[in-house]
């Protein structure tokens, strides 16, 4: 609860997010000199960005980290301009923005989506702050802009104009759709906008393919030494752990209660358990998810670090070790029997982002969580082609279908069991 003596104020929360953005930006210059970062940044801004385009490989780690830092600053700026409190969902959105800016999002391809959401708020005569989450998470469709602007062979500025129009339209329609889609999975898929973005991306690709334009998934992933990234993540998570403990008065009272939450939308841990304990939870998830990647022998590439950041961010909005571990185990077990290597990038991403289904594990128990992780692995490998990687939250797309299919069956079974116990 919000009773810790040293509870963080909104200023603490903003300071923390700014520190995160600054760490990413500063780290960029430890990896590459300024001229390489500048050239790399231009490459990032002017290249197609559909899944899986690792900016570490496309450009260089410095440019990718700078991109992530700048996108994090942008997210914080938009939140501040909207004059809302920093809550769990917004922390999750900022970390997700940072993570996906290592593989697909950038300043150029995100702004049209945000503008589309803003346009919707104007047309519907509603305050923009109500659609803040759609504006931030909706940037999952950023590759749509990049693809139209830079990959269809259109002359400039026609490509840029059409790309902007596509992004604007996607942001506009995403907003009402995302609300409707919540009922489809009943709040059991944490990446709700990922599911919606998958639907929007699927329609766009269907239209493009209808005109004979072929767009496929790519697999451009770096495989550099893990050590510098382990240090970077270690410093970040250790800092979060210490800050979290400080904000919660160096006590963990209440963490047990957080761990008993199912995590189902909309479990805002910042509101429910306080910012201090939320930061502790995020740090623990950071160590856990990084540990998983290293334990199975994976590489800390841009997308994988993006996945870790997203797990950490959702540590403020539904995820905790108790509901995440069964999903990780389910994906791992499926990896032992399917034809993908457990340490391959796609399997690592399935594990990290598969935790979108953590509420299923939290609500129905760990065995069901393991099953959800296994089913998700099968589904996510099969579904990306529908939107050709235009939706960066492919796991959210898959997770929506898994939750929508599992929840009614599980509820029906629960009901049958309860009736039999009675009768």
């Amino acid at each position, binding site marked *: 609860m919000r009773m810790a003596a040293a509870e963080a104020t909104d200023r603490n929360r903003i300071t923390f997010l700014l520190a995160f953005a600054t760490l990413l930006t500063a780290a960029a210059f430890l990896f590459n000199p300024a001229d390489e970062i500048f050239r790399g940044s231009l490459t990032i801004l002017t290249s197609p960005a559909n899944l899986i385009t690792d900016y570490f490989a496309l450009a260089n780690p410095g440019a990718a980290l700078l991109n992530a830092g700048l996108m994090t600053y942008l997210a914080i700026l938009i939140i501040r301009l909207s004059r*809302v*409190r920093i*809550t769990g969902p917004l922390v999750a959105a900022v970390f997700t923005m940072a993570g996906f800016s290592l593989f697909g999002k950038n300043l150029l391809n995100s702004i049209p989506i945000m503008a589309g959401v803003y346009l919707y708020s104007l047309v519907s005569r509603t305050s923009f702050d109500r659609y*803040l989450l759609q504006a931030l998470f909706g940037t999952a469709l950023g590759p749509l802009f990049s693809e139209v602007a830079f990959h269809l062979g259109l002359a400039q500025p026609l490509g840029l104009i059409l790309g902007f129009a596509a992004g604007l339209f996607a942001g506009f329609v995403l907003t009402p759709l*995302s*609300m409707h889609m*919540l*009922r489809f999975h009943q709040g059991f898929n944490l990446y709700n906008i990922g599911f919606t973005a998958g639907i929007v991306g699927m329609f766009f690709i269907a239209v493009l393919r209808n005109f004979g334009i072929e767009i496929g998934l790519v697999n451009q992933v770096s495989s550099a030494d893990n050590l510098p990234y382990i240090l970077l993540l270690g410093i970040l998570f250790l800092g979060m752990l210490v800050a979290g403990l400080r904000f919660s008065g160096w006590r963990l009272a209440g963490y047990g209660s957080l761990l008993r939450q199912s995590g189902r*939308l*909309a479990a805002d841990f910042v509101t429910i358990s306080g910012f201090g304990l939320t930061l502790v939870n995020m740090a623990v998830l950071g160590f856990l998810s990084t540990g998983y990647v290293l334990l199975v022998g994976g590489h800390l590439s841009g997308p994988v670090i993006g996945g870790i950041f997203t797990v950490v961010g959702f540590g403020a909005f539904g995820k905790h070790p108790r509901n995440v571990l069964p999903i990780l185990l389910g994906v791992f077990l499926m990896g032992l029997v399917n034809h993908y290597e457990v340490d391959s990038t796609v399997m690592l991403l399935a594990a990290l982002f598969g935790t979108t289904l953590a509420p299923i594990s939290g609500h129905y128990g760990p065995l069901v969580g393991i099953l959800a992780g296994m089913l998700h692995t099968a589904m996510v490998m099969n579904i990306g082609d529908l939107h050709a990687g235009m939706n960066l939250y492919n796991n959210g797309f898959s997770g929506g279908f898994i939750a929508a299919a599992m929840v009614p069956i599980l509820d029906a079974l629960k009901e049958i069991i309860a009736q039999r116990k009675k009768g």
Partner: protein
Amino acid sequence: MNGATQKVKRILAELLGYFLDNEVLDIHLRVTPDGGGHYVEVSGSAQKAPSDFDTFRLALTDGVQPEMESYYLELLDMGSSRDNHYLLGAMVDRADVTFTEGVLRISVYIKE
């Protein structure tokens, strides 16, 4: 039915649910529209305060979260009661929750 009316109906249903779940009797309900929103007051008699009264009061008075409104409107009647308390709290702009002399009284203000 416009969005504001729908929001008031959902919140009212949730508040009534809280009263009924906690066996609060003789429930009185008052909805007063003003220029920019609605005042909603629900009161009823009970022998003792609900067991989760403190949690409920904290959840309800935590402050509005406009960015989450769509989540609340869509999910409010789907989660567990504890989840719903926080959803409810984040939808109301002001709240006052009291239990005195056997009367549970909840007053909320909902901006349009």
